[in-house]
């Protein structure tokens, strides 16, 4: 488990100091994929760099499985870093080294024998599907291939943690999907704890278990991805997922006197015929104004905006039926 306690990072520029991270406390469970989302400048990049102390925290504590990272000596810190993989937005592959030599680097600095290194590197290149590129130099690879090499390099020394710093932000949507599913795969295979920062809610939707929303150096919301998608609490979070759940309602679509409701479906509900159940059992009319379904790693969540017209007692009954069917609803 990665435990972050009261973490603060203060920068001072021209004698004015500001908190990039402001008293942050997060517990990241072992073997989960934890997302940290925020706009640029929110502090997510600083936060992920504090975990392996590429950035030194100003105050606060970070521990990994009860090892206090923030008080490690330089020598012990280097040793611990060797077991924390990290991948980057710009891949950061060594241009002077071939694909093979890039993946070999973390093993070279441990002074492993040539045979051991070769065995391990070839295995890893097989895992990421780039064995035929082993003698190529990074400058000749596509973005997706570069990130695969970077992942292989990050895994070379069998880390227990993988830090992903905007790892898919420079990739097209399709490549992003393939990289994310690779990360999922290796996380399950190797029991990794993955911490990823991103500004793309699509990435969170695709692979995260839990997510923290960061704003101005503070955690403003932290929950399971399912809860964040069905029931975002802050305006910032709503902004982040807005384009993933369109709900623009044009005025011509409805009568202002209509009763508008937003329904949330989670999991199995998202696929069941709830509206037709309502219509069969109650004397009401339903007009669907907008709706969508998001496929998360942990199943589907749906949103539906409807207007219900009919006699008030019938509408009340219909809403009770919704609650019985485990559909959350709210009046707009």
């Amino acid at each position: 488990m990665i435990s972050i306690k009261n973490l603060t990072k203060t920068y001072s520029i021209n004698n004015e100091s500001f908190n990039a991270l402001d008293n942050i406390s997060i517990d990241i469970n072992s073997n989960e994929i934890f997302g940290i989302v925020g706009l640029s400048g929110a502090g997510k990049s600083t936060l992920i760099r504090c975990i392996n102390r590429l950035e030194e925290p100003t105050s606060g504590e970070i521990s990994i499985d009860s090892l206090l990272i923030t008080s490690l000596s330089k020598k012990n810190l280097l040793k611990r870093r060797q077991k924390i993989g990290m991948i980057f937005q710009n891949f950061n592959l060594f241009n002077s080294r071939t694909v093979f030599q890039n993946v070999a680097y973390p093993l070279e600095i441990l002074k492993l024998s040539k045979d051991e290194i070769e065995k391990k590197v070839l295995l890893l290149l097989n895992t990421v599907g780039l064995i035929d590129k082993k003698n190529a130099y990074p400058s000749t690879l596509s973005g997706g291939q570069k990130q695969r090499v970077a992942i292989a390099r990050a895994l070379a020394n069998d880390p227990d943690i993988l830090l992903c710093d905007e790892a898919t932000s420079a990739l097209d949507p399709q490549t992003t999907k393939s990289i994310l599913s690779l990360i999922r795969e290796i996380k399950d295979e190797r029991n990794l704890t993955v911490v990823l920062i991103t500004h793309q809610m699509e990435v969170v939707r695709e692979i995260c278990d839990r997510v923290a929303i960061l704003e101005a150096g503070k955690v403003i919301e932290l929950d399971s991805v399912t809860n964040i998608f069905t029931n975002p609490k802050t305006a910032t979070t709503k902004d982040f997922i807005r384009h993933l759940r369109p709900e623009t309602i044009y005025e011509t679509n409805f009568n202002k006197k209509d009763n508008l409701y937003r329904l949330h479906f989670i999991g199995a509900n998202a696929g069941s015929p709830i509206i037709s159940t309502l219509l069969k059992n109650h004397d009401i009319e339903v007009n669907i104004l907008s709706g969508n379904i998001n496929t998360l790693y942990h199943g589907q969540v749906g949103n539906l905006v409807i207007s219900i017209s009919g006699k008030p007692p019938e509408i009340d009954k219909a809403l009770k039926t919704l609650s019985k069917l485990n559909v959350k609803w709210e009046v707009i």
Partner: protein
Amino acid sequence: MTDVFSLLYKPLIETLYMTFISSFFALLLGFPLGILLVITAEDGISKKAKFYSILSLIVNILRSFPFIILMILVFPLSRIIIGTTIGTSAAIVPLSIAATPFVARIIESALREVDSGLVEAAQAMGSSTWQIITKVLLKEALPGLILGITLSIISLIGYSAMAGAIGAGGLGDLAIRYGYQRFKTDVMIVSVIALIIIVQLTQLVGGKAAAYIVKKRSRT
């Protein structure tokens, strides 16, 4: 004309000797200084603000000296190390010292070209400072370093010609004594052409070597 070429032989060897030996020492001293400047700087991997500003100041002061003044100042040092202040070997001491701060800045700027992201990645993998220097900075900057070293050698060829004025021998000395003082224009032209050829060859070799490495790094 054969006369001119027989005149050329000894100064040519002297110039090559001075350039080669002083390049060796200037690189030996300047290379580590350049590395120190990079790693102790504000954004370096082993930041030491005070050390950096002092070192940077010394380098700048040494670089501001006109070469001819520096040579005269370093005469006593030549006497201690070589035993004399006159002659080709004696010129090596001021040449090396004059070129050292130049080399340090050249190496520094070549190493600064390395993408800071690569250094960060190496740090994240648990590399020591020494490993980052040897396995990342020097390796990644290799083409730039080769071009920088080439530039340093070429400046030393120029410096060594100037050293001729204070009795160091070499092609510069030949051009001044025969061409300028005795009005033998042909000797002057030949010695200048010889210098041009040496500079061109050095540039060619350095340029080719750097280009070869760049090309190799785009192998698929």
